[in-house]
C-alpha cells in the first residue's frame, strides 16, 4: 500500500513538473506566434502597425504578470481549455484532441498490448521448446519482420492488400459515408478500416517481444528454482509458467512501459501513411501549419501518456514482484 501511495505521489509530482515545463518552454523561446505570422506577411511588403495589432489580438498575446499567466494556465489545463486551433478555426483544441485521442488509443494502444501479450507467449513457448520448430519459426520470423521499418511494411500492405487486391480500404478510420456513432454497423466499419494499420504495428513490434521474452526465459530456465521445481516433480506447465515465465517477464515490463508510453506520440508515421484521424495525424497537421495551441496541447498529452504508462508499469511491478514492495 505504501508502495502504491508513493508511486501516486511521484506521478502527481512529475505531472506538475511536466505541465509547468509546458508553460515555461514556449515563453523562454525567442519570438512569438505573432512574429512568425508577421514575418510571413512581411515577405510580400511592409506590415502596418494596425495589421500587427490585429494579428496579436487574433492570436491573443498574453497580458498580466508571469505568475498570473501561470495560474490562469493551470486553471485552463484543469478545465481542458487549451484555446482555439489556428488551422481548424474556430474549433477548440480540446475538442480536436478529444476526437483524435480515442482513435489512437484504441488502435495503437490495443495493438501494442496485444503484441506484448502475444509476443510474450510466443517467446515463452520458443524458450520452453528450445530448438524445435516452435522456437525456430517465431524467432526467425520475428527477427525478419521487425527488421523492416514499419512505414515500409505499411506501404507494402497498402499496395498489395489495399490497392492491388482491393480487400481493405486504403485510408481513413471509417467510410466517408458513415457518421461516427455508437452503432454496430459503424463499429464494424471502423474495425474493417483498422485491420491494415493494426497488422502493420503487430508485424513490426511482435518480433521484439518474442526475442526479448525468449532470451530472459532461457536465463530463468537455468535458474536453481526451476531445477528445484523439476526435482520436486511439479507439472511441466507449472514450472514453465509459474516459475520460469513469471520471473522472466519482469525485465520485459520495463520495455512494455516504454512502448505503452510511445503509443500516443509514436503513432505519427502509421497514421500519416493510412490517413488515420488519430493524435499522430493531428500532430503532423499542427506542425505543418504552425498551429501552436494545438501543438502545445498535443505535447502535453504525449508527456502525460508517457508518465501514465510508467505509472501503470510501476504498479504492475509492485503486483508481480514482491521484492519491489518492500
Amino acid at each position, binding site marked *: 500500500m505504501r508502495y502504491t501511495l508513493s508511486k501516486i505521489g511521484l506521478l502527481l509530482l512529475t505531472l506538475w513538473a511536466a505541465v509547468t515545463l509546458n508553460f515555461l518552454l514556449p515563453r523562454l523561446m525567442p519570438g512569438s506566434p505573432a512574429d512568425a505570422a508577421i514575418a510571413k506577411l512581411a515577405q510580400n511588403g511592409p506590415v502596418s502597425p494596425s495589421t500587427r495589432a490585429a494579428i496579436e489580438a487574433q492570436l491573443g498575446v498574453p497580458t498580466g504578470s508571469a505568475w498570473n499567466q501561470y495560474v490562469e494556465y493551470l486553471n485552463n489545463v484543469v478545465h481542458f481549455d487549451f484555446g482555439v486551433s489556428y488551422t481548424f478555426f474556430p474549433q477548440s483544441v480540446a475538442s480536436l484532441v478529444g476526437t483524435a485521442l480515442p482513435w489512437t488509443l484504441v488502435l495503437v494502444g490495443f495493438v501494442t498490448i496485444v503484441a506484448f501479450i502475444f509476443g510474450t507467449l510466443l517467446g515463452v513457448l520458443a524458450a520452453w521448446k528450445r530448438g524445435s520448430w516452435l522456437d525456430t519459426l517465431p524467432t526467425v520470423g520475428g527477427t525478419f519482420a521487425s527488421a523492416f521499418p514499419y512505414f515500409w511494411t505499411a506501404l507494402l500492405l497498402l499496395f498489395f492488400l489495399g490497392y492491388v487486391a482491393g480487400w481493405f480500404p486504403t485510408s481513413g478510420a471509417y467510410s466517408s459515408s458513415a457518421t461516427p456513432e455508437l452503432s454496430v454497423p459503424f463499429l464494424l466499419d471502423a474495425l474493417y478500416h483498422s485491420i491494415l494499420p493494426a497488422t502493420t504495428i503487430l508485424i513490426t513490434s511482435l518480433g521484439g517481444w518474442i526475442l526479448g521474452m525468449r532470451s530472459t526465459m532461457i536465463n530463468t530456465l537455468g535458474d536453481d528454482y526451476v531445477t528445484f521445481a523439476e526435482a*520436486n516433480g511439479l507439472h511441466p506447465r507449472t514450472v514453465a509458467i509459474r*516459475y520460469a515465465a513469471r*520471473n522472466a517477464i519482469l525485465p520485459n515490463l520495463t520495455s512494455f512501459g516504454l512502448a505503452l508510453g510511445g503509443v500516443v506520440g509514436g503513432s505519427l508515421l502509421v497514421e500519416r501513411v493510412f490517413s488515420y484521424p488519430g493524435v499522430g495525424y493531428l500532430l503532423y497537421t499542427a506542425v505543418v501549419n504552425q498551429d501552436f495551441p494545438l501543438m502545445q496541447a498535443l505535447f502535453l498529452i504525449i508527456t502525460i501518456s508517457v508518465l501514465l504508462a510508467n505509472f501503470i508499469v510501476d504498479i504492475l511491478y509492485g503486483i508481480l514482484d514482491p521484492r519491489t514492495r518492500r
Partner: protein
Amino acid sequence: MSLVSVQGMSVVYEPKGALPVPAVRNVSFDLEQGDFVGLVGESGSGKSTLGFALTGLSKPPARVSAGSIFFDGVDIAGMTPSQLRVQRHGGFAMVLQSGMNALNPVRSIRDHFFDIFAAHGHVSKRDREARAVELVGKVELPASVLDRFSGELSGGMRQRVSIALALSLEPRLMVFDEPTTALDVLVQHAVMDTIRELQRSEKFTAVLISHDLGMVLEVTERVMVMHDGLIVEDALAAEILAAPQHPYTRMLLSHYGDPRAAVVEVPGLAARGGRRAAVVEPVETPSVVEPVETPAVVEPVETPAVVEPVETPVETPVETHPPAVRKREGRAAREAIVVTNVSKIYQRPSRGEQPVCAVNNVSFTLEPGASMALVGASGSGKSTIAKLITGVERPTSGSITFGDLQIDTIKRRQLKRLHTEVQMVFQDPYAALNPLHTVEYILTRPILNFSKLRGRAARHRMLELLETVGLTPVEQFAARLPHQLSGGQRQRVVIARALASDPQVIIADEPVSMLDVSLRAGVLALLDSLRETWGVSMLYITHDLLSARLVTDQIMVLNSGAVVEEGATADVLQNPQDEYTIRLLEAIPHPTVGGLVDS
C-alpha cells in the same frame, strides 16, 4: 533388496560442437534403506553429476550414457521425464547446493508447498495448510514463514525451506548436494544438525555430497570418495579415518588439522607450533596501541639496493623461485597500518530501519612484515575493515594511518600512493579476473599504472611476477586467458597482480575459500613465503580458523563488528576465552570425534 542399486553407470557431457567429456565413469554401488552415505570429491570429480543422475535430473548436455540405476527394483535411467515425475512422490528428492536460489522469488513459501501437493495429489486440499505447517516445523521454522517470500528469508532459513519442500515429497532417498556450502559457519553447523536429526526420525536414505571430507566423516556412516569420475574408495567412515586405502583419500585427509593442537601441519606448509608466536616479538595487544608508538616501529630498515630492473637481461635464467626482486628504490621505508577506534555505521536505504553498525570501535596495528588474521562469521565486519583500510569506504569515526597517509580522510589523488603500498587479494578468483584479457595484460596494467617500467622492462617484470607466484613456464601462462586456468592458478594470478606494485601490505579476503582443499595449501604457502622473502605484511581475512592458524601470528576475532578476542594466533586458538570464539572452533568438523562416535 537394496533401495538403490547403481550398476556400471556412466554420465557423459555432450556440449554442442565440442568433444564429449566423461563426467562419471562406470560407477557401481548399492544404497540400503536408511543409509546415510557421504559422497566426497573436489570440484570436477563428478560428484554432483552423479547426484543429479541418481535423482533423475540429468539434463542436456549431461546424459546417462551407460549402465542402470535401479530404484526399488525399477530402472530409472531409461525413464521419460513424465514417468520420472510420477516417481518423485515417495521416491527421490534433491536439495541443491545453492539453497539461496532454489526458491522462486515471486511465489510465497506457502505456494511452493501447495504446488508440490497439487502436482502429486498426495495431500488433500483440506489438509494442505496443516501439512505445510508441519513440514516447516520439522526444519525448526515457525508457521509464519509460509507467508514470506524467499527474499525475506536468511540463507539458512531458505535452505531449511528447501529441505522441508524436498521432504514434502515423502521421499525414500534424499540427495543433499553441498547443502551448507553457501552458508555461514555457525549456520552450517545448525543446518547439518537438522539434516542428521531428520534422517534419523524420517528414516530416509540420505546421500550427502560435499567437498568437505571432514564434515562428511563427522555426519555419515559410509563414505564414497570420487576422483575424476570414479569412485576410488567406498568404505565405512570409521575405516576411512583409521586406514584410508586410496592415495587420493589420504591426500584429502592430510589437509585436515585441529587449529587447537599444539602443532598444526598440513602438507606444503611448515609446522606451526608456538614457534611463530615466539619469533615475533610480543607486540602489545592492538587495542592499547597509541599512535605515539608508531614512529618508533618505523625504522628505515629496508635498503632497497636491489637489482636494477632494466639492467637485468631477459636471458639470465632466473634463479629458483621466488626471485625476491624488490623494486622499492626511492620509496618509503616500511610502515605500519595503525587503526584507532574505528567505527563504520551504514544507514539503511529505507527510513524507519535501524542503521547497521558494521565495525564498532576497532583498534589494531599491522606491523611491517607481520601477519594478522581477522576472523569472524559473515556479517562480523571483517570485509568492511578491508574496505576501510584500502580507502574504498570511509569510517564513520576513528582514524586509520599508513605512514604519513591518513587513510580515513584520504584524497582521490592520494589513493594511488596508498594502493602502491596496500593491495587486495580477492575471495573469488573466478570473478576477479576480466575474462577477456590475457594474463599478460592483466599483470601489465598495474605495472604500467604503478611503476615507471615500460616496454621490455615491464614485460620482464610481468614474467618475474609469474615466476614469483610459481606459474611456470612463464611465457606459456602469460599468453593464457583466465578461463584456461584452474581456480588455484587464477588465484595465483590475482596474487601476482597484487604484487605488481611491490606493495608493503597485502589484504587477503578469504583467498582460499573458493578453492579445493588440495589447492589451498599451495596458495597459502605462497602467501606465507611472500611474507618471509619480501617482508610483505598480510592481513588475512577468513572464517576458517585452521588456515588462520597456519599462516598468521596474530589473530583478532570479530563478532558483530566488535573485537571479542585478540592475541597470538596459537594462544587464542588453544586457549579461547570468548564464548563466540569457542563456538566458531566447535563448528569446525572433527572427523576424529564424530565419525567414531557415529559408527
